[in-house]
């Protein structure tokens, strides 16, 4: 019976042109996006410096070599370039400033940063500029300056590997979440339609038990979501590290998506309401993925969103080769949330269908 229901749902799902298109297109697009993104971390920070005329010959080469900075002619040109996003930061050094530095005096230097620069990055620029100016000062005054090399890895250095992660790999967990999301809408719509069109009533006056009905939906939901994320993981070559752990995580993640689909289907009446509610919930579920991409945005409240434990686990497994011990806590929390969402969703759906 369960097999017959799953087969029926697959037929209906793939006869819906919208879902078929979005499923295959989404999968292909995510794989393409992954390979289009740079494979290596690109942490070059474009910087511009303004130097007074005579100082260009003396310090120009030093600054362009050490900071990989471009020299620009005036403060106004620098400000416009930073504002337009051509440079992430700009430093203006005048004759007066340079003289003070040479004499080992305290100086105040204008630094410009692009809009949206995170506090951590701003601090990194200040550190770079301080080092450079201290070097100029030491060169002239022979005053010993205590400068320590301070490497900052941007983002959580989860396993202390000290290596930055490429953008495409940082994007992978959010891509997996997006694929889960497409399946969430599809499954929620499939179940909601059973209630709306009365087909669930027709099924439930046969020997089919409601538990079998839910089991079929659950298996379909897990299967569809799991298969797609598995394809993406395989296509990106990430499936082959910690395969069993990754498969386990994706299965638990698929169950979370199924539970949420049950909940959405329990109170939605048509495709538009499914879409509206799913979009709202998906935005929430996607937030932890954004945090992986832009780690400096991280806040503790993000842990209140259940998908955090899925995204965090995927991030650790895919990007940091984490083992069972490092994601076990996350997976246990996720399993508990799965149990609650599937249980509550089934209960509400039972009320709707009976």
């Amino acid at each position, binding site marked *: 019976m369960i097999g*017959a229901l799953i087969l*029926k749902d697959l*037929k209906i799902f793939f*006869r819906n042109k919208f879902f078929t298109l979005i499923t295959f297109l989404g999968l292909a697009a995510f794989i393409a996006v992954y390979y289009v993104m740079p494979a290596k971390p690109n942490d070059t920070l474009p910087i511009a410096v303004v130097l007074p005329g005579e100082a260009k010959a003396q310090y120009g080469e030093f600054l362009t070599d050490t900071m990989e900075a471009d020299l620009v002619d005036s403060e106004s040109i620098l400000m416009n370039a930073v504002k337009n996003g051509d440079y992430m930061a700009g430093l203006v050094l005048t004759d007066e400033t340079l003289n003070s530095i040479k004499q080992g005096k305290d100086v105040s230097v204008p630094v410009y940063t692009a809009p949206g620069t995170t506090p951590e990055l701003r601090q990194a620029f200040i550190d770079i500029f301080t080092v450079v100016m201290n070097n100029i000062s030491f060169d002239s005054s022979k005053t010993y300056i205590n400068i320590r090399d301070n490497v900052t890895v941007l983002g959580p250095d989860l396993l202390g590997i000290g290596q930055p992660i490429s953008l495409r790999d940082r994007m992978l967990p959010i891509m997996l979440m997006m694929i889960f999301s497409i399946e969430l809408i599809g499954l929620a719509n499939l179940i909601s339609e059973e209630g709306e069109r*009365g*087909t669930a009533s*027709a099924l439930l*006056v046969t*020997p089919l038990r409601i538990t079998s009905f839910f089991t079929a939906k659950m298996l379909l939901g897990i299967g569809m979501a799991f298969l797609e994320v598995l394809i993406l993981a395989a296509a990106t070559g990430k499936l082959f590290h910690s395969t069993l752990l990754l498969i386990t995580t994706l299965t638990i993640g698929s169950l979370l998506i199924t539970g949420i689909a049950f909940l959405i289907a329990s109170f939605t009446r048509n495709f538009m309401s499914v879409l509206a509610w799913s979009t709202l919930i998906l935005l929430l579920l996607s937030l932890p993925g954004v945090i992986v991409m832009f780690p400096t945005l991280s806040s503790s409240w993000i842990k209140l969103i259940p998908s955090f434990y899925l995204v965090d686990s995927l991030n650790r497994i895919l990007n940091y080769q984490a083992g069972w011990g490092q994601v076990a806590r996350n997976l246990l929390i996720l399993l508990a949330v799965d149990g609650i969402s599937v249980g509550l969703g089934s209960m509400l759906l039972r009320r709707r269908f009976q």
Partner: protein
Amino acid sequence: MTQISISTSNLTYRYGNLTAVDHISFDVSEGEVLGFLGPNGAGKTTAVKMLTGQLQPSEGSVTVLGKDMRKHAKQVQQFLGVSFETTNLYEQMSAVENLELFARLFSVKNFMALPLLEKVGLSGREKERVANYSKGMKQRLMLARALVNNPRVLFLDEPTDGLDPVSSQTIHNIIRESSKSGTTVFLTTHDMVEADKLSDRVAFINKGKITALDKPAVLKRQFGKRTLKAEVETANGTIEIRNIPLDQAGTAEQARLLFMDDKLLTAHTEEASLEDIFFKITGRGLTG
């Protein structure tokens, strides 16, 4: 000895403070067609939901094929066929796929969809998506779906509502055939003519209560007034309609006068319809 297929005793269902079905009791024998008649909101669909195990009664009992539906609904449902009032087919699938799905749910072995589709007049379009079917075709497919497991009890909720005469006739023929072969038919309708034609007995339900339950002929005798309707041309050339009650002392004399004094143009007997009787019993029409 005739077996009882459906038996209810004080069957009641309440939605909050509203009593939708109010202590109804009746039996339906094997092979019998029971017409369950009442206006919209009378409690017909709620009663059917309890009889088919979709709803648990608030009070009373319901036994189908000798089993308590409260406890053994799933066992009994193996032998039920249900056709719903509103279309609830998988419209993205073909007729064959719809029937095959339900055949698998009923564990019907070696199921052949085509003979069944032929029976309901849908052969030739069996592979087309149901979404492209007309209302009549969908209704006939619903009936075919209800017959997939060769049911012992068939519940039909307004099976011909809004259908063309050809579709209605097909469904009527299938109901008669099913009854002849021993299937009990529980026919919910507000079409009195249909109920009169098909039902061995009819039950009137109004405001959740059964107000009358008997053979249509008995109800007509009990509540109806038989008359002879005659069209006559009088001596002065005018045409009159005369209604002569058939069951009164002066009937014979009045009939004789039709031939003596006037020129009789047409004459036929008239019986009260079930609708008239329903109105007489409940004080309301079936469309109300």
